[in-house]
């Protein structure tokens, strides 16, 4: 599956990725509504975006988080009840919630930020799909 790969050593903290992301998905330039987050300072930046590990799917009480055919974990907004368990339980804190939005959001590896990044710190690359950590089975 194709996911967003971050090369933090190349990041200059310009925030172009955050701007284009929030503009694309929320029609406003607002880092609080970006699905990728830049933090740090000139001594080093970090880039936070979903790795598509799928742990959030396990804890969603309404099964609103599922992996699509291309392996990307997506949130079904219609099913989501805004409980924010996924926000608290994301291992990399890459599920976000923002003022004015009752439901969370995350990177779906759309690649918009890759094009916007002036230093090639971001790319979309093929990786192995993780083995699902789903312990239960249905009892039909």
């Amino acid at each position, binding site marked *: 599956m194709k996911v967003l790969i971050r090369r933090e050593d190349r990041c200059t903290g310009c925030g172009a990725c955050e701007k284009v992301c929030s503009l694309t998905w929320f029609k406003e330039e607002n880092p609080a509504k970006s699905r990728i987050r830049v933090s740090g300072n000139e001594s080093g930046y970090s880039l936070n975006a979903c790795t598509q590990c799928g742990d959030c799917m396990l804890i969603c009480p309404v099964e609103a988080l599922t992996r699509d055919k291309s392996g990307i974990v997506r949130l079904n907004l219609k099913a989501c009840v805004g409980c924010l368990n996924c926000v608290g339980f994301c291992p990399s804190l890459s599920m976000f919630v923002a003022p004015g939005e009752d439901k969370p959001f995350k990177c779906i590896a759309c690649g918009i930020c890759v094009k916007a990044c002036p230093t090639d710190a971001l790319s979309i690359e093929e990786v192995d799909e993780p083995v699902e950590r789903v312990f239960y089975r249905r*009892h039909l």
Partner: protein
Amino acid sequence: MIRTKVAYDLQAIKAKHELLAEYKYDIKPIDRGYNNRTLHIDVGSRAITEKPVSGEMKRLFTGGKGFGMRLLWDATRPQTKWNDPENEIVFAFGPICGITQYAGTGKTLVVTISPATDIPIDSNVGGYFGPYFKFAGFDALELQGISDREVIIYFDGDKGVIKIFSAPDEEINSHLLAEQLIEMYAKDEQEKKSFCTVSAGEGSDHAYMGCLNFSFYDRRRQLARLKQAGRGGIGSVFRKKKIKAMVIKYTGTTPNNNNVADIETIKAVGAKYHREMYENDDAQCDMRHTGTPHLMEIMCDYDLLPTKNFQFGGDAEQIGKVDSHIWREMFTQGIPDGCWYGCSMACAKVIDNYMLRTGPYKGHVVSVDGPEYETAGASTNMNIYDPHFMAEMNFYCDTYGVDTISFGTTMAFVMECYEAGILNLEITGGYDLSFGRGEESMEMLHQIARGEGFGNLVGKGIRWLKKYFVEHYGADPQFLEDIGMEGKGLECSQYVSKESLAQQGGYFIANKGPQHDEAWLIFMDMVNKQIPTFEDKANALYYFPLWRTWFGLQGLCKLPWNDVEPTNNAETDEPAKVPEHVENYRQLYNAVTGQNISADDIISQSERVFNFQRIFAIRRGYGTREHDRCPYRGMGPVTETEYLSRAERYDKQLVEILGVNPEGKSTAEKMKLLRDYREGQYQKLLDAVYARRGWSRNAVPTVEHLKSIGMDLPELLEVVKANL
């Protein structure tokens, strides 16, 4: 193994429904946590009416249990008995109930005049009923009257329609009935999550310890899960009214059905709390994997796990068979087991693929909701340290609508009576009811459901049995008073309180009877020694019962308060209160309602309802000092065996506390000394607690106190003045 699916002709069952009443109401949005109206249904006359909620009702009673108590008071007379038509079951929810962003926010508070205690009981329960009913348009539901035939009450919260049907052919036992009804009404698998049922079972038809099962649909297991309003025989009242079930449909759950004043604060507090759960739970209580039975070995280590009818606090040799490792293994892992959306504590664990070994469903493969700690403790109390027995008993208690706590505590009492020679094979119908007898205990439970045999008597509970054993079998009344672990008629939940005076008070002063949800002070008192003086204990027995009451006013679960804690909690001024979580709750309340209350106001809200509940009992001829009696088994060793099993501890106390040299004294003499001391301490505790609470020495709230908390209502003053 595949879960057993019982096949029914649902069309034929549904065809037997006769519409007895229909009511339509306007759907209105909730306003900052309140609908500002409640619903009343008389199942006898089939009248359905709406009642407005006044500003004063909200100001004085807040919601949830407060509303329940107020409505029950108004609907009943002091003489109303549990089985009178005018007795009500009130279901109420509270302003915070139904928010999805924080853990433990889906509770329903259920109150009624209890068949066990003859005073108001309150029980809190998870499942989706509370939130759905609130979203459907009401802050409380009163069920009154007795139907002349079996009925189902159906609420369509999407359309604003209520229907009462006759229901002759549905099952009564909950695990089957819940599945039947959801299958019957949901148009497809996807829609099942929008349905919730409330039902009891055949045990509730005969016992005074009947419970209610509230379902929630588990999409991963494709199963109607059951949570219980367990205490005080509410299921018995439900079945007395000939209600088979209530069914609610609500499809429109969103992040903000409550139309709260400040959703941003709720989101922030919720997300912060979920992270705390993610980071801390595994290393703290492990509630997410083990649920409340994580307590088993901890309770045993501290000599608190009831064994052989509270004689002993555990059994080091047997505990390994039922400790947390066993439950982690037996519970299915990896499923979000919250009983309402947003519960990251997710402690509603399940044993899947369990094959029943006894009873009418023997051989069926089922999913068992639980056991919780209290159910497992009820089993060790019978000296049955067997996880499979615990699962079996748990399953049948639930589906029969029998409270596991009362059943276990009553059976433990019966077993001690059996071993003491008060009962014998002839009386029990040929069943050896010695401690540890699992198969025979299960048979007693099945007999409760069938309403036959000695089991049918067991279902009436300890207070009833004490009288019966004296009258019919010549039992020594004093011995039964000493060993029967009930207070006010309610069987004690599963903690040994002997070495914690504060917990003796926590249990036996509790308004409804000895249930841990009003106060749990054992660690503060006995282990951490944080409340050594009477004043300290009285302060704890002032604050904590009020703090815990508040959850019941709001529609909240208490477990997320202190079953996970912030990492720095121990460094705070008052770790037992979990200050950061108190602040979370204060913020949640304010964010839902738009008010600006302080932490002290939280206690004031509770204090009004707490005193109201006490006066409610006094109005009915109870609630005074004599009714706060603690059986001696709750305080100290009743038998020589008990004394000798902890002789070193007790002898040491004689020396250190009483200044008595135990050498040369018989065990009986030493027991008498200890007993006199401990009983005296309990009386002193009552004095201290009553004074701290603004009550007279006879446990009656004083006029001055009622004025100071704004509860000097004429109907309350009338009751207290007659008793002061």
